[in-house]
């Protein structure tokens, strides 16, 4: 960095007049904005004034260096002026100031410190200051600076060049991975803070969140290749293998929330990460299972809001409707109910296309989204070659899963093949070749697959329907227990998605007993823990007891994640207790033939349940069993005071 490079003739005004401090600040800001480094003059002026309010920037001997670091500064710059008559700038020595250098620095740690330091070294020389004051015009002014600077630092700096070259290099793209142990709040707060700051700084920031619902917005190989740096804001293990050869900055997740700007700017300067560990081959085979899981979760996590939003509105419809009018139309008998039902259905019907679309997108990016969507929709309609308009036997959830993965890998393959096409067709690929060929192929594929999957589905569900009492109870135990194993992880989600998929096949107004067992399995763990913190106070730390209360609410709302902190701190005792409690509740729910027409909602959907009384008993018994087990298994916490 050289001072002369930060100035130019247009940004220098000599022997002007200024009435007071604010007047000269205004004039300097005008000069500063001349080469377009300020995105917002007003914000910059405010930053300058705010800085002056902390203490004057007048140094001594009539020199002042007003400066500000601000997000509205795109590139570092200087503006300079001399006054015919000095103005009072609240200098320490009380003298009026008549030589001004205004510094604009982007929000980067040390740059403005370096400019200041540089400038100070020059200004300490009284001859330099004297010559500047006597300079005839801007060109002469520049020449004086150049001469003294060259004398002091040499024409081309060696030492400081690399240091200052870095921040000036435009950062285009920064990636981040955020993760926290619970994966509910911090992961997403950090991601949001980073993305928001990225937009402010005009830097493309993509954040992968590794929350409790699985990894979302997964960074692709291309992303990683093209980025300038990677931020890992995580309080748990993040697999870094894929980031080898890139600058990786590792910080706690809280830094992502509180210091997004610093992280974004620092990341490209972080040390380059070298992965040491498994060989490349095991990495690939290892990550394949993980990749499948992530791709599936990408679909599931995008699908869930549709399921929950739509499902709950449908549940409200049942709640408001009067079944005695016409049972076969339950849910749409009264106009209000019909409204809720239709709106809910609209969202609910997106469920499978969204699932398959986003699975596909996780595999092959945007080109696959449309193909996956269409594939999912075809699975819903159950289209076959004989009746392409759809059949009565949809391929449902299973079909949509197949459609998602098939679309993804189909598009991945197509992209590889299309790489061999001439460059001239490059623009045609995303707008013509991918969608048309992709749709054709997935259409053929789904028509082939649908009858098979449809048959499997029908067999599966009629099997479930026909299941005897005892095997249903076993199913209830297994599903409810799965909900409690990992509280939001893959087991939990697998059970939950299975439950919601049974809902989709139910006739209007009919609840699913499987869904009921699944929900109760998710409600028991937080409630059991909350009860345990109330009745076995000595087994929990004061902090745990406090958060225990919240678990009552979490449990009643069917937010299993509330139990995670407890499970994480003592998994070997907490998880089995919860699983057994959930299993008991699931078994009872099945035994009482409780059924639930809504996919989520906890206590709020109780009114639409079949056999609420039985459900209550099941929930209470399951929770108490869980609580008692926790009380027996957990060790007393030593009070350390």
């Amino acid at each position, binding site marked *: 960095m050289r001072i002369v490079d930060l100035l130019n003739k247009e940004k220098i005004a000599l022997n002007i007049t200024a009435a007071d401090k604010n007047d000269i600040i205004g004039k300097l800001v005008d000069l500063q904005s001349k080469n377009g480094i300020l995105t917002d003059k007003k914000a910059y002026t405010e930053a300058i004034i705010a*800085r002056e309010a*902390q*203490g004057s*920037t007048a*140094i*001594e001997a009539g020199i002042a*260096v007003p*400066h500000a670091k601000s997000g509205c500064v795109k590139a570092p710059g200087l503006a300079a002026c001399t006054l015919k008559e000095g103005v009072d700038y609240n200098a*320490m020595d009380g003298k009026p100031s008549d030589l001004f250098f205004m510094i604009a620095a982007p929000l980067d*740690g*040390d740059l*403005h*410190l*370096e400019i*200041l*330091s*540089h400038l*100070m*070294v020059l*200004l*300490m020389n009284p001859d330099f200051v004297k010559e500047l004051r006597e300079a005839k015009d801007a060109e002469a002014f520049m020449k004086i600076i150049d001469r003294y600077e060259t004398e002091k630092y040499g024409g081309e700096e060696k030492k400081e060049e690399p240091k200052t070259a870095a921040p000036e290099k435009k950062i285009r793209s920064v990636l981040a991975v955020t993760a926290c142990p619970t994966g509910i709040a911090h992961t997403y707060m950090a991601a949001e803070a980073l993305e928001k700051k990225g937009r402010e700084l005009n830097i493309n920031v993509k954040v992968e969140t590794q929350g409790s619902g699985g990894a979302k917005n997964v960074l692709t190989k291309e992303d990683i290749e093209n980025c300038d740096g990677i931020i890992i804001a995580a309080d748990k293990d993040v697999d870094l293998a894929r980031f080898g050869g890139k600058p990786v900055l590792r910080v706690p997740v809280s830094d992502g929330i509180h210091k997004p700007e610093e992280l974004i700017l620092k990341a490209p300067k972080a040390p380059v990460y070298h992965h040491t560990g498994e060989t490349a081959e095991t990495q690939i085979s290892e990550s394949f299972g993980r990749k499948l899981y992530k791709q599936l979760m990408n679909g599931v996590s995008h699908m869930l809001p549709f399921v929950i939003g739509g499902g709950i509105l449908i549940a409200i419809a049942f709640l408001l409707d009067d079944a005695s009018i016409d049972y076969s139309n339950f849910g749409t008998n009264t106009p209000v109910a019909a409204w809720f039902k239709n709106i809910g259905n609209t969202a609910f019907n997106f469920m499978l296309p969204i699932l398959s679309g986003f699975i596909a997108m996780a595999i092959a990016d945007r080109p696959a989204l449309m193909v996956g969507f269409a594939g999912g929709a075809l699975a819903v309609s159950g289209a076959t070659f004989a009746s392409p308009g759809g059949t009565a036997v949809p391929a449902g959830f299973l079909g949509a899963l197949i459609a998602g993965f098939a679309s993804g890998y189909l598009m991945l393959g197509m992209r590889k093949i299309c790489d061999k096409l001439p460059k001239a067709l490059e623009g045609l690929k995303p707008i013509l070749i991918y969608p048309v060929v992709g749709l054709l192929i997935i259409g053929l594929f789904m028509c082939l697959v649908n009858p098979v999957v449809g048959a499997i589905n029908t067999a599966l569900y009629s099997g479930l329907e026909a299941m005897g009492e005892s095997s249903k109870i076993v199913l209830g135990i297994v599903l409810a227990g799965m909900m409690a194993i990992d509280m939001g992880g893959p087991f939990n989600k697998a059970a939950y998605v299975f439950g919601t998929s049974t809902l989709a096949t139910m006739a209007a107004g009919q609840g699913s007993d499987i869904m009921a067992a699944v929900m109760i399995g998710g409600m028991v763990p937080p409630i059991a823990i909350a009860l345990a913190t109330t009745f076995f106070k000595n087994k929990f730390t004061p902090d745990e007891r406090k958060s225990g209360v919240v678990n009552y609410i979490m449990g009643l709302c069917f937010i299993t994640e509330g139990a995670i902190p407890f499970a994480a701190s003592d998994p070997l005792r907490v998880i089995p207790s919860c699983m057994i409690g959930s299993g008991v509740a699931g078994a009872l729910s099945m035994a009482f033939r409780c059924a639930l027409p809504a996919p989520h909602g906890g206590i709020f959907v109780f009114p639409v349940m079949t056999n609420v009384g039985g459900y209550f008993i099941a929930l209470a018994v399951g929770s108490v069993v869980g609580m008692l087990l926790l009380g027996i298994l957990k060790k007393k916490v030593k009070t350390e005071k």
Partner: protein
Amino acid sequence: MVSAKVKVANEQGLHMRPAQLFVNTMTPFKCDVTVIFGDKTINGKSIMFLMAACIKKDSEIEIQCSGEQEEEALKAAVELVESGFGE
């Protein structure tokens, strides 16, 4: 003469405001105040010299006070730097 080594704690290093604060804090003491940073020896009562040294965060500096009130001056200086200049 007394001296102590301290680490600059505030995020932005010894920029103008901290430098001013440092000089303002040191001026009332009669002793000489010298800041040693790397191979630079700096007059601790001059803003310009302090700023010219370009002292960044986490740099270790040595403060030397020599003369009347040297103990008090050093104590005040160390406290100020360690407190991060109120930033």
